[in-house]
């Protein structure tokens, strides 16, 4: 499928530029979260969870590959998925700030995963009806994976929250610590508005309502408390990141930076 035929942005350079950045946001969120999950391999609390987390990571990296390939075609300056993944610096990454937060303990990883899974459920579900047929096709594939991810993470959230005193305390601590990054998920900027106006991406306000209902219901089942809303000075989707992303990229990009073009 040709990118130019799929996207309703032909001939509109400003819209094309906005679409490029929008697709990068989706791609980078999946890529960075997938890289984070990969850090668990060999360290997860049980062999079965080790494989489970690796499966989620591979799904997310697969989504990132499809999205980065599309982004590269939209950009049209000869970069490919690998150039976008391995040769951009932190300020050029447009992932949600939440995705780059360190793994912490298992509860921390689960809460981060659950918050993003619930977000991706809303976003991908809406994108399946996108005016951009390429994006709609990618979203349809990613949605199936995300449904499983959410089943996995929300299941663990309830186990931990409604588990022992120790697991409950850790889960609540993770929710309290990560909640400040959730404001960014549904705060639209000019790119989100442009995408929504072109019927490419969902209106974030409507998706936010569904996300809040879902998250509240899960918290209730997990006997956890939703923290008060907090203002967010982080704007990962605009390229303004916490210090953690630089370290993550240092590890992820090390090989390609040291041996450019290396492959196997």
């Amino acid at each position: 499928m040709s990118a130019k035929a799929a996207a309703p942005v032909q001939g509109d350079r400003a819209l094309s530029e906005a679409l490029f950045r929008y697709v990068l946001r989706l791609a980078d969120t999946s890529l960075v979260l997938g890289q984070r999950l990969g850090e668990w391999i060999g360290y997860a609390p049980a062999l079965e969870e080790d494989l489970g987390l690796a499966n989620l990571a591979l799904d997310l990296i697969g989504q990132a590959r499809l999205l980065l390939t599309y982004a590269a075609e939209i950009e049209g300056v000869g970069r490919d998925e690998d150039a976008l993944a391995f040769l951009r610096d932190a300020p050029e990454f447009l992932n949600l700030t939440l995705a780059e937060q360190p793994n912490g303990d298992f509860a921390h990883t689960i809460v981060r995963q659950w918050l993003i899974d619930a977000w991706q459920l809303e976003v991908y579900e809406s994108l399946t009806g996108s005016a951009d047929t390429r994006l709609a096709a990618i979203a349809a594939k990613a949605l199936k994976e995300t449904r499983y991810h959410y089943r996995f993470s929300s299941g663990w959230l309830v186990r931990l929250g409604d588990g022992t005193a120790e697991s409950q305390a850790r889960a609540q601590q993770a929710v309290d610590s990560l909640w400040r990054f959730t404001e960014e998920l549904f705060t639209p900027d000019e790119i989100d508005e442009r995408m929504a106006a072109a019927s490419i991406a969902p209106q974030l306000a409507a998706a936010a309502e569904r996300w809040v209902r879902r998250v509240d219901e899960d918290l209730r089942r997990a006997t956890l408390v939703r923290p008060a809303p907090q203002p967010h000075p982080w704007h990962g989707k605009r390229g303004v990141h916490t210090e953690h992303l630089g370290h993550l990229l240092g590890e992820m990009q090390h090989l390609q930076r040291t041996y450019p073009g290396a492959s196997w």
Partner: protein
Amino acid sequence: MSNPAADPPTADWPLFEVFIRSRSGLEHKHVGSLHAADARMAIEHARDVYTRRLEGVSIWVVRSAQILASDPAEADALFEPARDKVYRHPTFYAIPDEVKNL
């Protein structure tokens, strides 16, 4: 044996046996075992451990403790008597040429 759902939580996850149906119409086959806190988690673990390469379309799990197994010490009594009864195999009998469908 009590209902596994009612078992008290333990520090160690119990063992489950996993059965996978590779295609619709085929039977579920035993593929291995894994640890999980309960049946729901066992299904998820089985999905992640045993169906990563598209091995299946359906999963059964059962607590290993709920399987009643034959005693190897009784193998002689259970299985030896069948050894000299080859006539129980249909191939033991010569089929007359006149019989077209059997």
